[in-house]
């Protein structure tokens, strides 16, 4: 039998679903930068908790922002 977990892990929720953010725009650097940690990689869903449809939109927006130098491809 599996041991019962002693700690309670808070269930991650998708920020975009909770806050009803539909428009994930490539120009919204403030929003997008929350999902690109130090190394400028795109944060995986298992860490951020973003749902699949929103993650898809998010990664597309981040890639567009990178292409016009609003976000870095990699940190120097």
């Amino acid at each position, binding site marked *: 039998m599996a041991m019962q977990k002693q700690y309670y892990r808070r269930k991650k929720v998708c920020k975009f679903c909770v806050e009803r953010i*539909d428009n994930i725009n490539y*120009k919204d650097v403030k929003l997008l930068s929350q999902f690109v940690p130090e190394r400028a990689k795109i944060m995986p869903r298992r860490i951020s908790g973003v749902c699949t449809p929103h993650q898809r939109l998010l990664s597309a927006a981040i890639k567009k922002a990178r*292409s*016009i*130098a609003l976000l870095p*491809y990699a940190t120097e």
Partner: protein
Amino acid sequence: MPNYEIMYIVNPNVVEEEIDKINGQVDSVITHGGGKVGKVEKLGKRRLAYLVKKFREGSYVLFTVEASGAVVHEVERRLRVMDQVIKYLTVRMDEDSKRLDKIKAHREKRAAHRGSRRAEGGDRRGHAQQAEQMPEE
């Protein structure tokens, strides 16, 4: 005709008037090609996320355009040729905004539906209770 957003970065050492001149050129290319220019926004000087042609900064300009693909293609070609423009990006927006409208309409419909159900009272009770319990979680 589809909607596009054309964004480009101009060399940071270029003065304001020069940027206006570039914008005028882009504008004329679009209107000559039978397109419509919606909005021209100068977003000002911004730090670039990485070096572009050895520049750390750049002046951003954003065009909102309604034009055919061929016109946009021509604008891109012109931008590529201009020395002052160090980077550009074109994004098609109409499919995105269509999706947003759909979500918005759906949400409004649901809100209206929920309101009417509560007013009726009693009819599909099980469903109504479930819906009411949701926010407590």
